[in-house]
């Protein structure tokens, strides 16, 4: 591969290179870095506070919702009287049981279709 460079241009580029004093440049940059660090800290504190507030206000309603969902899922699909049969099918005779069965079917179908 050709990487030949013109010697005159090469020497001009070398001569044009200045050794630039960096004190002012570094000071300006580091003040920007410090500002960035402060802003990042403030942002994280803000996010933390927002999360705490959300948890504070949402804890009650979320707990109620979780209880309602748990109660709903455990309701029997078909009313069965007490007995051995009722006790045997009890885990499947709920909305939660149907959901679990559906998930298992979807997973095994996916594996059957896409397994290499």
């Amino acid at each position, binding site marked *: *591969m*050709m*990487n030949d*460079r*013109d010697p*005159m*241009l*090469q*020497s*001009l*580029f070398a*001569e*044009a*290179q*200045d*050794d*630039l004093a*960096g004190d002012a*440049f*570094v000071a*300006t*940059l*580091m003040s*920007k*870095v*410090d500002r*960035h*660090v402060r802003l990042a800290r403030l942002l994280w504190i803000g996010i933390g506070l927002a999360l705490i507030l959300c948890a504070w206000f949402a804890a009650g309603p979320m707990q109620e919702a979780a209880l309602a969902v748990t109660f709903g899922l455990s309701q029997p699909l078909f009313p069965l009287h007490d007995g051995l049969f009722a006790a045997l099918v009890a885990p499947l005779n709920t909305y939660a049981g149907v959901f679990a069965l559906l998930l298992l079917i979807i997973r095994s179908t996916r594996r059957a279709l896409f397994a290499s």
Partner: protein
Amino acid sequence: MVGLACNGDRDAFAELVRRRQSWIRNLMRRCSGDPVLADDLAQTVFLQAWRNISQLRKPSRFGGWLKRLAVTVWLQHLRKHDPLLNADEIDGAGGVAHAIAGREPGIATDLDRALAALAGPVRLCIVLSYHEGMTQSEIADLTELPLGTVKSHINRGTRQLQTLLSDYNEKARSEEPHDE
């Protein structure tokens, strides 16, 4: 030093900047032709370096990583200010000529004036080749331009610079010792 900076050590990063600032500022000066703009862009490069240095996996590659950042910052600047960059039709001399006009005469000023006459991508390839000493394949890799394009940019830019800086060529020839 780089390892410390990767872990968020501010003083280590400041020392890294102190060591590399002249190199990056010179690179940006050759690209932009404007010392003030070059320093602004160099500041942007180092700020981005500070923000992303924790993602640097191999500290030994800091130099190459910084160079890639610098090229990215310069390309972003070009895209922001030169919408025709991708069409390769820009005339980079417009904004730079004003900045060069007020500078002290000298090799750097003459070189920057000549570089300003080149189109943005040509200028970048020339600077990476002559200022950074990179090979054409390294430039293609860094700029994500096809190798053939890099070759033609460098050939075209070299010819243009030879013409624009012909005074220096003649001067160099006249200073060569003559065999009699």
